[in-house]
C-alpha cells in the first residue's frame, strides 16, 4: 500500500520537472516572444558546446568536493574537540552553529565586503599587521574564496550532526579501548572515526544536494568570474536564463544539472554504501 500522500508528493514533484523537459525542446527566448518553436535536442547541443560548459562542470565538482572535504574534516575535528564538557560548552556550541542561520546572500556580502576586501577588509588588516601583503581573494583565489565562504556556511551543519552522533557513542567501547592500551589518538582513529562513518555519509549526502546548487554566493561575490573561474553549472544556467533569457537552453541546462547530480549521487551511494536508507 502506497499512501495517497506519496502519490501526491510524486505529482507535486513531477510537474516542474515535466515542464522543464518540455521547454528544453523548444526554442523559447523571452526577448523574442513570437519565435517559439520546437527544435528537438538543439538546446542541449547549444548548452554542451557553450565555451564555459566544461569549466563549469569542473568547477561544480571542485566546489562540491572541496567544501565537503573541509566541512567533514573540520566538522569532525571540531565536534570531537567540543564533545567533552567544559565551561561554556553551551555557548561555544551556539557560536559554532550560528553561521547556519545566516542567509547565503548575507554571508557572501559580509565575507566579500567586510572580510575579504583586499584594501579595507579585516583579512587585509590582519595581513598588514603581520607584515604581509593582503591577498586579493576574489581575483587571485576566486574559487578558493567561494569555497571558504560556502564551507563556513555549511560547517555548522556538519558540526551539528557530528555532535549529535558523538553523544550516542558508547562510553564503554572507549573504556575498553583505554584498557586495551589505546591513547586518545588511537581512540579517535579506531573508534570515533568509524562511529562517525554513517553521520559522515549523511552530511555528504545532504550537503551535496545543496552544494550542487550553490548560486547566491557566486552571484553576489564574483558573478562567475574572473573569467570562468567561479562559474558552476547553476551559474551557467543562470546566464542562460536571466542574461540571455533563453528559456530553452536554460531548461536543457537544468536537466543536465539533474543528470550530473544523479551521477554524483550514484557515486556517493556507491561510496557510502547503503547506510542512508537502511537501518
Amino acid at each position: 500500500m502506497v499512501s495517497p500522500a506519496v502519490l501526491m508528493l510524486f505529482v507535486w514533484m513531477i510537474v516542474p520537472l515535466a515542464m522543464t523537459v518540455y521547454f528544453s525542446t523548444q526554442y523559447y527566448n523571452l526577448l523574442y516572444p513570437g519565435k517559439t518553436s520546437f527544435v528537438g535536442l538543439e538546446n542541449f547541443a547549444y548548452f554542451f558546446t557553450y565555451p564555459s560548459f566544461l569549466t563549469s562542470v569542473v568547477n561544480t565538482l571542485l566546489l562540491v568536493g572541496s567544501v565537503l572535504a573541509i566541512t567533514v574534516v573540520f566538522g569532525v575535528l571540531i565536534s570531537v574537540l567540543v564533545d567533552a564538557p567544559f565551561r561554556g560548552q553551551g555557548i561555544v556550541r551556539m557560536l559554532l552553529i550560528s553561521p547556519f542561520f545566516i542567509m547565503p546572500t548575507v554571508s557572501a556580502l559580509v565575507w566579500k565586503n567586510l572580510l575579504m576586501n583586499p584594501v579595507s577588509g579585516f583579512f587585509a588588516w590582519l595581513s598588514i599587521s603581520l607584515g604581509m601583503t593582503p591577498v586579493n581573494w576574489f581575483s587571485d583565489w576566486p574559487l578558493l574564496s567561494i569555497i571558504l565562504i560556502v564551507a563556513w556556511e555549511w560547517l555548522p551543519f556538519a558540526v551539528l550532526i557530528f555532535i549529535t552522533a558523538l553523544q550516542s557513542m558508547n562510553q564503554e567501547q572507549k573504556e575498553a579501548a583505554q584498557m586495551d592500551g589505546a591513547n586518545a589518538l588511537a581512540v579517535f582513529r579506531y573508534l570515533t572515526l568509524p562511529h562517525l562513518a554513517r553521520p559522515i555519509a549523511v552530511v555528504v549526502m545532504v550537503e551535496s544536494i545543496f552544494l550542487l546548487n550553490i548560486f547566491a554566493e557566486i552571484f553576489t561575490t564574483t558573478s562567475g568570474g574572473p573569467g570562468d573561474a567561479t562559474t558552476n553549472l547553476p551559474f551557467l544556467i543562470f546566464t542562460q536564463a536571466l542574461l540571455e533569457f533563453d528559456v530553452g537552453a536554460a531548461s536543457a541546462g537544468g536537466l543536465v544539472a539533474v543528470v550530473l547530480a544523479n551521477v554524483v549521487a550514484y557515486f556517493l551511494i556507491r561510496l557510502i554504501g547503503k547506510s542512508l536508507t537502511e537501518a
Partner: protein
Amino acid sequence: QTFLTIGTVNNGDMVRMQLLAKEYEAKHPDVRLNWVVLDENTLRQRLTTDITTNGGQFDVITIGAYEAPMWGRQNWLTELKNLPASYGVDDLMPNVRKQLSVDGRLYAVPFYSEGSITYYRTDLFAAKQLTMPEEPTWEQIRGFAEKLHDPSRGIYGICLRGKAGWGENMALVTTMVNAFGGRWFDERWEPEIDSPEWHKAVNFYVDMLSKFGPPGPSSNGFNENLALFNAGKCGMWVDASVAGAFVTDRTQSQVPDKAGFAKAPRQVTAKGSSWLWTWALAIPASSRKQEAALDFILWATSQEYGGLVAQRYGISAMPPGTRLSTYANQAYLEATPFAKVTQEAILTADPTSPSIKPVPYVGVQFATIPEFQAVASLVGRQISGALAGNTQVDKILHTSQGAVRRTMKRAGYYDPK
C-alpha cells in the same frame, strides 16, 4: 485607493526619490506607493522576467537606456505622448531623449543621466607637480598613474572597473575600445572582438590596471571603486559622472575637497570615449494603472521635483544630466564643480554614432539589441579573467569572438530566414 508598485534601483538618487515621494503621497492621498528596491542586476532580471511574460507586477519601472528602446519597440512599454506642456519635454537633453525613444516616440522619461569622466586627486597631482589636461589621453593617464602609484602608502595610481558585467567593466572597456578606434560589430553584424583595436585597447587596459591599479581590480565595480576613491586610495578614477556628488560629499568621502574632474580619456579619437547612461522611468503596457503611473513618473522627473531635491538636500544633489534648464541654473553650476564636465560628456556622447567606424547599432557603451547583455557579459567575464591573470588577453579575445558570433548566429543574425 490606487496602489502603484514601483520597481527601482537602489542608487542614491533613487533612494532620495523614494524618501521624497512621501510628499507626493501627501499631495495625492488616493495614491499609495509600494517600492521594490533592488540592485541593478537583480532589478533588470526581475523586470525582464515580468515584462516579457506579461506578469503585470509593476506599474512603474526604472529602466536604463538599454532596455527603453528595445522594450518600446516590442510594445511592452506604454508610449508617453501628449505630455502636459508644464512638463517641458523639450527641456530634456537631446541625446538623452534620443536614447529613450524609438523612431521619435518616447517610451521613458529620464530620471538622471550620466556620462563618464575622469576623477583625480588634486592634492596628489600637486605634490608630484603634475597637471591634468582637460582632455587627457589614455596614454597620459597611464603616465600619471605610474607616477602616482605608491601602494606602500595605500595610494593606487588608477582605479578602473574590473568586475565582470556588461554594465560594469564592459561599459568602461567599450568606451576605451571606442577611443582606440574599435567597435562591437561591423555593418553586417560580424563581431570585431578579435580586431587590432580591441587587442590594443584591452591589452592597454589590463596592463595599466594590473600595474598601477588597486589589488584585486577584477572584483571592483563602480561601488568598490567609489569606496576606494572616497577612502583616498585612488590617484585617478574614470567612471560615471554621478559619482561627483559622492566624492564631494563630506558624510562619505575622506577627500571631498581634493577631487578634480576632467573629461573621460580619449586616444585615437574622442568619439565614443565617454559613455552615456540614463536611468529612466517607464510604464509597462501590462500595468492596469496607467494614468496614476504616468502622473507619478512625470512628477518624479519634473523640474518641480528637481527643486524639491535642491531644497531638501542642497542644490548639487539635483538629478543630473537630464534637463537643459539644470545646467542653465547658475546656482547649480557654482555649487557643483563637476557640472560642466558632466554636461559636456552628455552633450558629446552620441548614441547613434559611437565609433569612428560605422556601426549597425545604437548606443555608446552598449548596443541596443537583446543579445548584447549576453555577449557583453560573456566578454566581460573573459576580460576580468585576463585581468586576474588567468589567461592571455589575445587568447580570450579570440575565444570571445567565436562565442559572440555563436550567440548572434543562434539569434538569427546571419540566417536568411
